């Protein structure tokens, strides 16, 4: 699979943001990213605090801002951005969504069909004839998403698409985005809605003060199994082991194992922890601050951090066998 977006050595600052702003991050660029690639069929989610640069990064990817340095490459046509505060044209919702098709001179019939389909995807078919500026906050957001979907872009960028949107519509939007990815398109979005991020993301990219942090790990796809027990649940990792998790009603598709709660041991010690898996070390990476990041394949990939001392004691090398132990309550379901 070729990358849909490639980005290297990116640097960006707003032109007249003055020194008051720069003070925050020293003399460096507001946004500084060494490298980032997104694959086709991938949903990548940017998370991070207010002002960390998510919107700025998305605008750079969309070509709406010009980087001060580095390269931004979007393959398979331009990336399409849905703004954090979308601008709707002062006309009907239908006309808003149909516009990108109309300017491409599509036949009237196709325009109608695709527009109505897009509106249905975001659950706005009832409001097609409404004057867009009179929509409620969440309705506006969904109309803007429909206006982007109608073009079936190969790369879709969404800036906090689910803020202001009600739970049912969030589910609908998530379905649509997953469908986009299944159709081989890339979706890159920012959000503050972590559950939504975990449910959707193939990759979660945390940002902090204009820099990328290591991607989030231990996100397992699968499905919950019939609990059987009242206070303990089971989650089937797809193509991997079953793990124990907190009892939960309803269907969940994602389990996240908190990295810090994973215990590594050479022997299969008996503990009260429910989950005990055997696996092979795939990588050991010494990081700053006396900590090491260990990646283990135990049917599914799990990452844990341990101290440098533990690395020595357990003789952790790529290829070593060991036991991975964690409590059911270390697992979060989404």
């Amino acid at each position: 699979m070729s990358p849909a977006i490639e980005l290297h050595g990116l640097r960006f600052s707003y032109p007249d943001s003055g020194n008051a702003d720069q003070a925050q991050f020293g003399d460096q660029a507001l946004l500084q990213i060494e490298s980032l690639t997104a694959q086709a069929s991938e949903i990548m989610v940017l998370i991070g605090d207010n002002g960390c640069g998510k919107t700025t990064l998305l605008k750079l990817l969309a070509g709406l801002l010009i980087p001060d340095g580095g390269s931004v490459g979007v393959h398979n046509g331009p990336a399409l951005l849905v703004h954090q505060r979308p601008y709707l044209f002062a006309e009907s919702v239908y006309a808003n969504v149909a516009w990108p098709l109309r300017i491409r001179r599509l036949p009237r019939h196709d325009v109608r069909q695709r527009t109505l389909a897009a509106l249905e995807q975001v659950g706005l078919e009832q409001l097609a004839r409404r004057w867009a500026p009179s929509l409620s906050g969440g309705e506006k957001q969904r109309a803007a998403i429909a206006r982007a979907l109608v073009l079936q872009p190969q790369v879709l960028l969404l800036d906090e698409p689910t803020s202001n949107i009600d739970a049912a519509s969030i589910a609908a939007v998530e379905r649509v985005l997953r469908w986009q990815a299944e159709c081989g398109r890339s979706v890159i979005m920012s959000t503050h809605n972590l559950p939504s991020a975990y449910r959707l993301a193939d990759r979660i990219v945390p940002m902090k003060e204009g820099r990328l942090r290591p991607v989030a790990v231990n996100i397992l796809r699968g499905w919950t199994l019939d609990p059987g027990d009242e206070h303990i649940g089971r989650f089937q990792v797809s193509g991997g082991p079953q793990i124990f998790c907190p009892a939960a009603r309803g269907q969940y598709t994602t389990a996240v194992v908190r990295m810090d709660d994973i215990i590594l041991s050479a022997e299969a010690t008996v503990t009260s922890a429910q989950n005990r898996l055997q696996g092979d070390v795939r990588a050991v990476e010494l990081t700053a601050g006396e900590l090491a990041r260990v990646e283990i394949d135990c049917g599914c990939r799990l990452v844990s951090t341990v101290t440098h001392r533990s690395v020595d004691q357990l003789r952790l090398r790529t290829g070593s066998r060991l036991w991975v132990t964690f409590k059911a309550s270390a697992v979060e379901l989404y």
Partner: protein
Amino acid sequence: MNLASLIEALRLLVVWDRELAAITFNSLHFAIASTLIAALIGTPIGVLFAFREFPAKRSVVAATHTLMGLPTVVVGLLVFSLLSRSGPLGGLGLMFTPTAVIIGQAVLALPIVVSLVYGGLARLDPELAETLQTLGATRLQRSVKIVREGRIAVVSAILTAFGRVVGEVGTAMMLGGNIRWYTRTITTAIALETQKGAFALSVALGIVLMTVAFGVNFGLNYLIRFRPGNRTI
């Protein structure tokens, strides 16, 4: 001016004097033609100013804004020096013809259209331009859409220009020469009649002028400004 002139003015209006009609027609002809020319040239320039960066933009915008106040007599002088027999375009023999007036008034209207269109569009949401760009509109399509979104500003700019031009007397006088049946407009006629001390016709013409301006404005305002909720698909 007294009551008698007012009554006479009303009489002239009711009878709808042939000369009154000719003068009104000239005024409308020159003003509409010149405003149209200015609108066709000026609106795209205004859009450009509003949504594109170019060197010295600040100064160019300020200069255009200043040109809005271009005195009619200066424009008259300028176009005169071009079209006069001793000027570079003297050979065309356009001096003191309707064409000369229309050229002068278009010059007058152009900076008004550009500057007011710019002013109006620049206040639109900055995300509009980004949205159009990301939706893949061509430059032309973007401009058209921006004008549509800012149609109140654009229409108001064009109406302002029309109002200015239909009511101006300097260029019409200097370039048209106030020739009866030919280049005499409402304003030059008013100037003449006031010269003559004949206030009745002045007043009648003034009323016609105001009616024209009101009519055009009300009509366009109604058509464009007050139909935001066009709900048909």
